[in-house]
C-alpha cells in the first residue's frame, strides 16, 4: 500500500485535495442543474474520502507534522497557507471525510428544496472542516474556524425546523462571540511573539508570562468551550440540534463539536502550558467537565424529544473529552481523542437513525413510537448497537475512550474520576429508557405498524458507521498507536517549564473553590502537592518511596515517579517520560 501511495506522490497532494477537493465539488454543484446536485456532491465526497483513507497507511506515527506545506498568503502580515498533519488531526480529518459522503447520502430524501444550495454548503463545510484540522498557520486556522460557522448557520436557518431562526441565531451569536475573543488573543500572541509570523511554531515559541497566559487561555478557552460545548455554555446545542435538519445534526455532532476539543489539544495545552497547569484552571476545567458528564446525563434522561435527548448526551460525552484532556496524562489525552472519534461515529449514527424515524413519521417525540423492533428489525438492530456504543459498552468504540480518559484522570485526580465515572451509570439511565420506548413495548400506535425497515440506501449509510463502532471497540490499538507520539508531544510542550507553576500555587484557593464545587478542593490539594513535588526534592512519603522502589530501574530521580507508572516494554517503545 505504501509503495502504491508513493508511486502517485500521495503525500505531495493529499492535504491540498482534502481542502480544495470539496471546494471543487462545491463549484461543480453550483455549475450543474439542481437535480444532479446530490449525485455530484456524493461523487466528490466519496472521492475525497477514498483519497483520505490513504492517510491510514501513509502517515507514519511520530511527533510533529507530516506532509507539511507552506506558501505565503498575506505576506504583509506573515500569514501563510500552511498545512500539516499529525496524529491528533489524522483521525479528525478521517472522521470528517467519512462524515461528508454519509451525510450527503442521508440527505437524498430529507432535503427536497434548494438542493443546489444545500449540497454546495455541505461541500463548503467539508472544506472548512478539513482546513481547520490541517492548518498549521494560526491565522489560517482562524479563517477556516470562522468559515465552518457560515454554512452551518445557513443549513440550520434554511432547512431547519419551526424555530430554526432562533436556533440559528443562537448558534451564531454564541460561537461568534467566542471566536472574536479568540481573534483578539491570537493577535496579542502574534504581536508579543514579534516574529511577524502566524505559524504554529512561532506561537509555540512566544514567551508569555503567567498572567498573560491566564488571560489568553481564557480567551481561547471561551471560543473552544462554546464549540465543545462545555457546561454551562451548552444551551445552544440542544436548540441547534433539534432545529437542524438531519444532515446538519450529523455534521454538527460528528465533526463540528470536535473542533472545540481539537482546539484544546492543538492550542490551549501547548501554547499556554503554565496556565493549563495552574491549579485553579485545572480544577475549573475538571469541575466543568465532570459537571457536564453528570448534569447533561440527568437532563438527557427526561427529554421527551429524542433528538434533544441525543443532543444532551453529546454534552455528556464531550465532558469525558474535557476531563481526559485536562487530566494531562497520556492515557487521559488518548482517551479524550478516542471519545471524540467514537462520539463522532456513534452520535452521528444516532442522529441518522432519528432522522430516518422523522422521515417516516414526522415526529421526534419518543412517546409517538414503541414496538418498532417488530416491524423494523434491521433498523432496530442498528439502533441498539449504536446506543450501546454510545453508552460505552466494552467491545464497542465508546468504551475504549471512556476507559482511557477515566483511567488517565484517575492517575492524577482519583476523586474527580470517581465522580466522572458515575457517568457510566447515568448513561444507561438516559439511553435504555429511550431504546425501550422506541423499539420495544407494545406496537400500539397504528401509524407505526407501517413503519418501513431500512432501505438499501439507508443500510449503506449506516453500515460503515456500525462497522467502525465494532472495529474500534475490538481492535483500537492501531488507532492509539497513530495518535500516541503526537499526544506525547503535546504533553512535552505542557511540561517544558513547570517551574513557573510553583509561584502560582497560592494557599487558600482550594478553600475558595470548595464552595463553588464540592469535591474540587480535594483535587486542588492534590494538584498543588504534586506540583510542589515536581520541583522540590521528593518528600519521604510512603507513596513516592514505594513507587521509586518499585521502579528502581526507571529514572525516578525527579520525584515524579508517583503517578502514571510505566509499563516496561509497552509495545516495544522506549520507557515513557514520567509525569508529575
Amino acid at each position, binding site marked *: 500500500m505504501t509503495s502504491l501511495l508513493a508511486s502517485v506522490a500521495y503525500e505531495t497532494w493529499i492535504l491540498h485535495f482534502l481542502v480544495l477537493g470539496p471546494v471543487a465539488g462545491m463549484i461543480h454543484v453550483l455549475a450543474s442543474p439542481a437535480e444532479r446536485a446530490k449525485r455530484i456532491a456524493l461523487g466528490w465526497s466519496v472521492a475525497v474520502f477514498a483519497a483520505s483513507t490513504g492517510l491510514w497507511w501513509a502517515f507514519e506515527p511520530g511527533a510533529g507534522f507530516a506532509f507539511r506545506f507552506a506558501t505565503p498568503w498575506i505576506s504583509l502580515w506573515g500569514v501563510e497557507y500552511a498545512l500539516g498533519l499529525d496524529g491528533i488531526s489524522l483521525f479528525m480529518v478521517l472522521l470528517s471525510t467519512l462524515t461528508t459522503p454519509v451525510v450527503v447520502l442521508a440527505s437524498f430524501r430529507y432535503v427536497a428544496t434548494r438542493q443546489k444550495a444545500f449540497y454546495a454548503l455541505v461541500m463548503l463545510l467539508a472544506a472548512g472542516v478539513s482546513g481547520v484540522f490541517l492548518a498549521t498557520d494560526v491565522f489560517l486556522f482562524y479563517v477556516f474556524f470562522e468559515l465552518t460557522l457560515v454554512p452551518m448557520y445557513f443549513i440550520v436557518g434554511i432547512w431547519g425546523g419551526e424555530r430554526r431562526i432562533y436556533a440559528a441565531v443562537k448558534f451564531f451569536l454564541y460561537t461568534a462571540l467566542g471566536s472574536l475573543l479568540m481573534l483578539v488573543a491570537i493577535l496579542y500572541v502574534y504581536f508579543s511573539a514579534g516574529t511577524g509570523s502566524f505559524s504554529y511554531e512561532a506561537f509555540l515559541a512566544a514567551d508569555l508570562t503567567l498572567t498573560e497566559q491566564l488571560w489568553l487561555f481564557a480567551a481561547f478557552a471561551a471560543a473552544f468551550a462554546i464549540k465543545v460545548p462545555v457546561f454551562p455554555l451548552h444551551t445552544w446545542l440542544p436548540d441547534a440540534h433539534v432545529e437542524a435538519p438531519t444532515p446538519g445534526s450529523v455534521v454538527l455532532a460528528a465533526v463540528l463539536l470536535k473542533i472545540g476539543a481539537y482546539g484544546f489539544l492543538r492550542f490551549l495545552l501547548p501554547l499556554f502550558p503554565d496556565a493549563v497547569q495552574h491549579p485553579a484552571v485545572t480544577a475549573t476545567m475538571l469541575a466543568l467537565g465532570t459537571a457536564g458528564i453528570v448534569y447533561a446525563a440527568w437532563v438527557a*434522561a427526561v427529554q421527551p424529544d429524542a433528538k434533544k435527548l441525543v443532543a444532551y448526551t453529546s454534552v455528556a460525552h464531550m465532558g469525558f473529552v474535557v476531563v481526559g484532556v485536562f487530566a494531562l496524562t497520556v492515557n487521559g489525552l488518548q482517551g479524550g481523542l478516542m471519545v471524540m472519534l467514537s462520539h463522532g461515529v456513534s452520535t452521528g449514527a444516532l442522529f441518522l437513525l432519528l432522522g430516518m424515524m422523522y422521515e417516516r413519521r414526522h415526529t421526534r417525540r419518543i412517546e409517538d413510537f414503541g*414496538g418498532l423492533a417488530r416491524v423494523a*428489525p434491521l433498523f432496530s438492530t442498528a439502533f441498539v448497537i449504536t446506543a450501546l456504543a454510545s453508552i460505552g*459498552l466494552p467491545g464497542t468504540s465508546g468504551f475504549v475512550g471512556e476507559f482511557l480518559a477515566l*483511567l488517565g484522570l484517575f492517575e492524577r485526580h482519583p476523586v474527580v474520576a470517581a465522580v466522572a465515572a458515575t457517568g457510566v451509570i447515568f448513561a444507561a439511565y438516559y439511553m435504555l429508557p429511550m431504546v425501550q420506548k422506541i423499539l420495544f413495548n407494545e406496537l400500539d400506535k397504528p401509524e407505526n405498524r*407501517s413503519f418501513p425497515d431500512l432501505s438499501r440506501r439507508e443500510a449503506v449509510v449506516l453500515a460503515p458507521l456500525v462497522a467502525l463502532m465494532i472495529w474500534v471497540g475490538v481492535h483500537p*490499538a492501531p488507532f492509539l498507536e497513530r495518535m*500516541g507520539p503526537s499526544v506525547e508531544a503535546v504533553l512535552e510542550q505542557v511540561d517544558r517549564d513547570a517551574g513557573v507553576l510553583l509561584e502560582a500555587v497560592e494557599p487558600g484557593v482550594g478553600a475558595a473553590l470548595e464552595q463553588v464545587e464540592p469535591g474540587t478542593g480535594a483535587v486542588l490539594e492534590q494538584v498543588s502537592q504534586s506540583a510542589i513535588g515536581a520541583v522540590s526534592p521528593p518528600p519521604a512519603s510512603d507513596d513516592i518511596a514505594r513507587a521509586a522502589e518499585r521502579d528502581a530501574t526507571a529514572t525516578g530521580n525527579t520525584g515524579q515517579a508517583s503517578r502514571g*507508572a510505566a509499563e516496561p516494554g509497552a509495545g516495544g*517503545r522506549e520507557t515513557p517520560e514520567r509525569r508529575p
Partner: protein
Amino acid sequence: MPSSSSSGATAPFADPASSALSEAAALPVQQAAVWEPFLPWMVVLLPLLGFVANGLLALVSATRSAAAVRAGGTEDSLSLDGGRPRTHRWPTYIGPGVMIAAFLLAIVNFAGMLGADLHEPVVAGPYWTWLATSSLRIDVALHLDQLSMIMMLVVTGVGSLIHVFSVGYMRDDPGYPRYFAYLNLFVFFMLVLVLGAGYPLMFVGWEGVGLCSYLLIGYWFADREKADAGKKAFIVNRIGDFGFLLAMFLLFDNIGALDFVSVFEGAEAAFSDNRALVTTATLLFMLGAAGKSAQVPLHVWLPDAMAGPTPVSALIHAATMVTAGVYVIARSSALFALAPASQAVVAGIGALTALLAATIALRQYDIKKVLAYSTVSQLGFMFLAAGVGAYTAAVFHLVTHAFFKALLFLGAGAVIHSLHHAFHETGSKADAQDMRNMGGLRAKMPVTWAVMGIATLAIAGVWPLAGFFSKDEIIWYAGAWAGAPGNANGSWYVVFWVVALATALLTAFYMTRLMVMTFHGRSRLGDAEQRHVHDSPWVMRAPLIVLAVLSVAGGLLNVPESLRVLVFGAAPFEWLHHWLEPVTHAAAEIQVAGMGEAAHQSPVGGGELTWALISTVAALAVVGGAFAVLRKRLYRTAAEDADPRTGLALALERKWYFDEAYDRAVVRPVLALSRWCWKIVDGIVIDGFVNLAAALARLAGWTTSLFHTGQVNTYAFVLALGVLAVLGAVYLP
C-alpha cells in the same frame, strides 16, 4: 495460535512475613508448565460463531414476520403449521451444536490439565493487543488455571444441557433463532469473563453478559413489564460496574498493570504499606460483585429478571452469570486476603443476603420468584464462604448450585410449559407460574416431580446429595473462622455462623413448600386443564435427568476427610480443594499468617462430622415436618385468594419493601432532580443569562438608534456638542 506459559501468579506470596522484600527476583524457581492447552480460543470462538449464524437467521426471520405485521397480521402469523421455515430449523442444530463442541473441547483441555500437575497459570496468547498507550498495555489472552477450568466446564457443560432443553421449551416461539443467537452470545461473553487474562478482559465479559441478560430478560420485548425488567437489570448492574471500573483504575495506578499475573505478583509489594488502598480496591470489586450476583442491597433486579424465558433463568440467573461475583472474588483472593476488613464485609453481606432472601422466599407464590430468591440466598452463601476465605467452599457450592438450581429452574420450566399449554388450550387466563394454580401435578408429571424432588433435597442439604457437602462446608468454615486466634472480628463470625444455620433450615422449608404447592395436595386445575398436563418431551427430559444425576453425585467433588465415612470412602479426599490449591494457596497463606489457623470445631464445640450429622437430621426434620403440615393445607387458586395480608406476611410478600424504598429514595429524587436541572437550570438560569445578554445588546442598539432620527438638525447638534467636548478636553486643564 501461539501459547506461552508464564510465571506463577501466586509465587510471590510464598513468604508473607517478608512482605515488602518479596520481589519478583526472590521467586522460588518453579518448573515450566508442561501442559499445552488445546485450541483454548476455539472454546470461546465457537459460541460467537453460533451467535453470528443464528443472528443472521434471526434477522431474516424477523424481516419476514415484520412484513407480515406491516401487512396487517400479527407476529403469530408466522405460521409454523406449513412446516418449520429454515430459520427455525437450523438454530436447533447450530445453537446446541456449538455448545456441545465447546464443551468437548473444554473436556479435552481439562483432561490435559489434569495430567499435567500444573502449579502456575498458563496464559494462552496474546492473540492481539487490545489497548496500548505508552503507559498501558492490555493484551487479549486467555488465563487458564484450575479455577478458570472449573468455570469453563460449568459454563459449557450446564450451558449445553440448557441449550438442548431450550430446543423443546422455545420450539413454538416466533423468535426462536433470535433466542439462540442471544443465548450463544451470552455463553461467548461468559467465557470471556471467566477466561480473560486480566481485569479489563474480564470486564468485557462482565458487561457483555449483562447486555445478554438485558436482551434475554426483555426477550418478549412487546410486554412492557418484561422490557422494564431488562432495563432495571442493566442499570442496577451498571452501578456495580462502576465499582469494578474504579477498582481497576486503583489497581493500575498502584501496580501499573491489569493482567492477573502481574497484579497478583505486584499486589503485596504495592499494598503492604497501604492497606487502606487494597481495602478500597477490594470493596469496589465487592460493589461490582454485589451488582452482578444480586447481593443486598443490589439484589432487586434478579427477581424481576424472571421475566425472561425460564431456560434463561436457569442458565444466566442461576447457574452462570450471577456467580460471576463469586468468581471475581475467588479470582482476586490474593487481594482480598490483604484486606481483612473487605473480607468481613463480603461475609457480612453474604450472610445478610442469604437470610433476607430466604425469608422473602417463604411467602412468594410465583414458582420462579421462589427460585429467584432462593438463588439470591444461595449466592449469599457463596459470598459468605468467600468472605471467610473458604474459596474452595465458595467454588464448590457454585458448582453444585449450578447443578441443582439449573435443575430446579428447568423443572419449573417444564411445569410452566405444560400448564401454559393447558391454559392456552382451554382458554384459561390463569397464571401458569403461580403455585396457587398448581397442586397435585405429581401424578401427571412423575419425571419432573422426581428430578425436582432430588434437587429440593440437594438444596436443602440432605445427605448424601450435592448440596449437603457444599453447604455444610460453608457453614463449617464460617464457624471455624470465628475461632481463629487472630480474628479480631470473631464474634461477628459467630453471628454469620448462626445466620447460615438458620438460613439452611429456612431453605429446607421454602423448598418443601414449593414442592408441596406444585406437586402434592389437591389439584387446583380444572378438569379440562388436567387433560393437557403431562411430562415434557425427551429433548427436555434428558437434560433434567442428567442434571439430577449431577445433583446427586456432585458432592463427591470435595468430601473432607472427616466426612469420608459418610460416603464409605468412595470419594477422593477433598479433590476440589487440592485441585484449586495452586489458585488459592497464596490467599490462604496470607490469611493464616494474619489470623492463624481456623479452629477445628464450631463456635459451640463439636467436630465437623457431628455438625454434618446434626445439619442433615435438622434438614430432614424440616423437610418432613413441612411436608406433613403443608400437604394437608388447602390452598386456594390465585383468583380466589383475596385475603388481605397483614404484618410480617405482608412485609415478606412485598419483599421487605426494597423496591418501594428505592423508588422513594433514589428513582423519584433523581427524576425530580433531572427535571429541575432541565427546566430551571437550563431553561431559566443559563438561558436566562443568554437571553438577558441578547436583550441588553438589543437595548444598546435601540438606545443608539434613538440618535438616528434622520433629522439633520439633531445630527448637527450632537456634532457640535462633540466638538465642544473634545475642545474642552484638550484646552481645559
